[in-house]
């Protein structure tokens, strides 16, 4: 595979649409994911984020538009296809087997073996060392590569999954709500590795509904609403406030606020003030 310094996006969607029966989950979605950039996809629940991810990661096919990888149109039939093109997805809960050691998790499904016939066996030394080296490259320091991965924090587990995807040749990394279930500090750790993955030259697609997290690492922001692109902007054209506003529903929210203001003005009951604070 050649690098994409010539400006061709690694992954590009052009007017992609997806219908479930007669429900239109996505329509006319266009976006480009460049190498060494973090593209954040934001949106409320039901905005179409999951559908978009499923299309990009090869779980679902698309009904309209074009999906390009390295400028070449593709139609994936399984996540394996996407993986073969270097597009890896790290799901929030589907990442690891808690009772297995870190290195066994790292190589699960792609174990390294040596020997032949009945003597074909796991190359434990090589796997432990590789896992350790790869994690260190990402800046992940574990006291013990043999400890069960379940003893790591949620953030660290995500990071191992990210490092694993990178090691197995991912060029585009899709992270589905990596910070959703995490505390502030843990979320920070994950975002740090998102940045590390970007610095390693990967195109990162970060799905989140937290504009604060997105703005810390994002280079490009796509806000989805009701299956359509509400906003598609680079970081330099945007402020956190503007992003939050778009994310929260933009103009709609503005209208809602007006309405609520009016309600408050007409109502003199103390209960409404209490409700507002609560």
């Amino acid at each position: 595979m050649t690098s994409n310094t010539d400006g061709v996006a690694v992954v590009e969607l052009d007017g992609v649409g997806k219908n479930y029966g007669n429900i239109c989950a996505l329509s006319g979605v266009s976006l480009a994911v460049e190498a060494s950039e973090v593209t954040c996809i934001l949106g409320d629940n039901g905005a179409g984020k999951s559908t978009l991810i499923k299309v990009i990661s090869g779980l679902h096919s698309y009904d309209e538009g074009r999906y390009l990888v390295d400028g070449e149109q593709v139609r994936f039939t399984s996540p394996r296809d996407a993986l073969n093109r270097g597009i890896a997805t790290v799901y929030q809960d589907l990442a690891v087997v808690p009772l297995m050691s870190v290195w066994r998790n790292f190589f699960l499904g792609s174990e390294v073996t040596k020997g032949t016939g009945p003597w074909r066996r796991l190359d434990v030394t090589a796997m432990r060392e590789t896992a350790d080296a790869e994690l260190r490259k990402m800046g992940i320091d574990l006291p013990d590569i043999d400890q069960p991965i379940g003893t790591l924090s949620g953030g660290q587990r995500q990071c191992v999954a990210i490092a694993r995807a990178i090691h197995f040749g991912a060029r585009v990394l899709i992270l589905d709500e990596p910070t959703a279930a995490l505390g502030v500090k843990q979320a920070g750790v994950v975002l740090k590795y998102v940045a590390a993955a970007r610095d390693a030259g990967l195109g990162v697609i970060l799905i989140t509904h937290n504009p604060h997290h997105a703005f810390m690492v994002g280079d490009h922001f796509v806000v989805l609403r009701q299956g359509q692109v509400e906003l598609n902007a680079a970081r330099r054209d945007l402020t956190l406030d503007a992003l939050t506003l778009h994310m929260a529903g933009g103009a709609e929210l503005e209208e809602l606020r007006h309405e609520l203001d009016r309600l408050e003005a007409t109502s003199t009951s103390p209960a409404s003030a209490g409700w507002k604070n609560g």
Partner: protein
Amino acid sequence: MSPVTQALDAPAAQGTDRHAQLTRRSAGRRFLTRPEVGSLVGAIAVFVMFFAVAEPFRAAASLSTVLYASSTIGIMTVGVALLMIGGEFDLSAGVGVTTSALAAGMFSFQFSTNVWVGVLVALVVSLAVGFVNGYVLVRTGLPSFLVTLATFLMLQGLNIAITKLITGGVASDSISDMDGFGQAQAIFASAVTIGGISVKITVFWWLLFVAIATWVLLRTRIGNWIFAVGGQSDSARAVGVPVNRTKIGLFMTVGFLAWFTGMHTLFAFNTVQSGQGATNELIYIAAAVVGGCLLTGGYGSAIGGAIGAFIFGMTTQGIVYANWDPDWLKFFIGATLLAATLLNMWVRTRAARR
């Protein structure tokens, strides 16, 4: 990069002496986190107890008898332990042994074939039972308790019904004078004399199966998959582990070992009682759990299962040597199970605490 990312670098900095930490995980701790440690302590305790109270237990020949009793439980426990690590269990394992023995015995007798033909037919039957268990499980998504309970009841019924239909009695006909019997007996039910003491061949088969299972679990891809499938099958599937094939394979492994144990029964006693075998599956499961296998899957070892089987073998024979009423056996097994499970839990939480 923003100040935010710089601030985040702080926690990583503390890992500078990580290589010292890497090696610091002591051999002792590593040993204590092994699944079978609790059962080893239990085995020593049971051994010491019978050694103290039962004089005949101290003879070397008694150890041979104890090992034989352990091996008849232990060979099945290897399969049951692997299956349990893979997240499932098999209630049909006990009667499956009888099914296999009956199939071999009756087939050879009725068709007057060489006993080896019956042995092969039984192997096919046992593997098929295992396959059906596994296939129904992965296709329907029903819990293994339900699927194998159904198989257990069906096999139990078939064992007795078919035996009655064919032989008119409740046992298969003796095959001791048939072609190939001596040869098969040498493989499945002979004894080897070591230092003047006769040791049953099943003991060696048992050790071999435990060794193979340990090798597979710890040093092959399939072993990795077994742990993964039992620990978190969705994650395993997501990274490309063939979950269904692994599970079906595990059930077939149990089938294979049921065949082996069945062949031992057949060639040791020449005839098989059609009603036997039931409730043995619970002994196998108990032995695996005593040996540190997690009932919920994803954790355990073949060696642990072997130690569990050894505990039950010692108990079975020890009660006889100690001249106790054998009615106490089941109580003792139950108490051992509870004690070992609690001990395992305690050891694991202590060892995992860092």
